[in-house]
């Protein structure tokens, strides 16, 4: 029996590299200045800048990025998106970037962060069991970091690529020392050994499980009406380590308003040795179904501003995956 999940179904790296550079350019100009101002003057003095910054994003972001955002909105809203919808999407994105400054530096005054489903994680933490938190580029992951920083008794780590948004991270690390130490960099031989050891110490490992930017193995699963190639890695990791999985999303619900939502996902992802691929696809599909439900509920929180469904540049996928 082969590995089953085809390595040829991975996303074209160029698309993602494009996304990475686009985002860096877009956010670092105006947003950096805004963040510096925000730190000096406070949220109240600078939040109105979100309107011109959003307008700037909309006017000057590359056309393919806006087109991709429109196609996403059409799927999530179930109708043709109006200009207003596109504005709300970009506005939400800009808001979460501004909020990062406050969330990461622990200045939570004026913020209202509701947490639901905490018991799903609390029980693991209390038992020092360790668990994997799966998120997505949906809302703000920083709000989860903020929650972790405000009194989580166990170690919390994030698995992510260091090279992506490295510059932005350097900037935010200056604001919030210690954030860099939270990251376990992906793509090294011992990355997953470090993750394993963290879990063994009863820690939590956060992974954004909706992108495979460096040619990782993916599997096409239905998401908002069309197959999307989502990475199998996070699910495979959970299965190999026998770790419980909890979904975690930090949804922006209004100015300085967030809802952190935890949901039990699996006690243990069991993969039949003979048919690992099917088991993995089922788990990834289950994750996609939850992401889809949240996209419908909070459509303006989706921050994958690129050809996520590969509608423009379809990969050489099996016929059943693209139909």
């Amino acid at each position: 029996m082969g590995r089953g999940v085809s390595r040829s179904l991975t996303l074209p790296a160029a698309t993602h590299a494009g996304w990475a550079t686009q985002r860096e350019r877009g956010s670092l100009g105006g947003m950096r200045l805004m963040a510096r101002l925000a730190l000096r003057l406070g949220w109240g003095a600078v939040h109105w800048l979100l309107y011109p910054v959003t307008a700037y994003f909309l006017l000057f972001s590359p056309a393919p990025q806006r087109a991709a955002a429109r196609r996403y909105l059409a799927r999530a809203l179930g109708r043709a998106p109006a200009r207003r919808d596109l504005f709300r999407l970009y506005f939400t994105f800009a808001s979460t970037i501004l909020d990062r400054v406050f969330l990461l530096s622990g200045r939570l005054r004026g913020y209202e962060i509701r947490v639901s489903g905490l018991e799903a994680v609390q029980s693991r933490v209390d038992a020092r069991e360790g668990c994997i938190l799966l998120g997505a580029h949906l809302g703000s992951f920083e709000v989860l970091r903020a929650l972790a920083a405000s009194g989580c008794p166990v170690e919390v780590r994030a698995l992510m690529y260091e090279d992506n948004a490295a510059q932005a991270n350097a900037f935010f690390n200056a604001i919030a020392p210690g954030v860099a130490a939270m990251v376990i960099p992906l793509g090294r031989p011992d990355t997953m050994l470090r993750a394993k050891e963290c879990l063994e110490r009863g820690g939590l490992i956060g992974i954004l499980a909706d992108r495979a930017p460096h040619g990782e193995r993916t599997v096409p699963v239905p998401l908002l009406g069309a197959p999307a190639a989502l990475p199998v890695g996070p699910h495979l990791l959970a299965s190999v380590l026998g770790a419980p999985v909890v979904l975690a999303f930090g949804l922006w619900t209004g100015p300085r308003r967030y809802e952190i939502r935890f949901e039990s996902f699996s006690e243990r992802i069991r993969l039949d040795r003979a048919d690992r691929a099917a088991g993995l696809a089922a788990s990834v599909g289950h994750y996609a179904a939850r992401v889809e439900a949240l996209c419908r509920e909070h459509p303006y929180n989706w921050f994958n501003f690129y050809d996520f469904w590969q509608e423009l540049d379809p990969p050489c996928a099996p016929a059943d995956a693209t139909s």
Partner: protein
Amino acid sequence: MSTTVDLEAEVAKLIVESLHLEVQPAEIAPDAPLFGEGLGLDSIDALEIALAISRRYGFQLRSDDERNHRIFASLRSLAAHIEQHRTR
């Protein structure tokens, strides 16, 4: 020398079995890179190999070992590390 070669063959078999690879153990060149280019393994594969090694040879590979890049560089370097540290 022959024990090293035997161990390399044994580790190659362990890798192929634990990762369900479609190649034959003998097809893994001892000096070829295991990760990225070459066999094209990723860090989850490394984890599975590490778990399989600890089950078979009775010692743990740790993340704080600075030699990990070298240890996981090739079949030969991995086998050499196992030879040094195995407890069974």
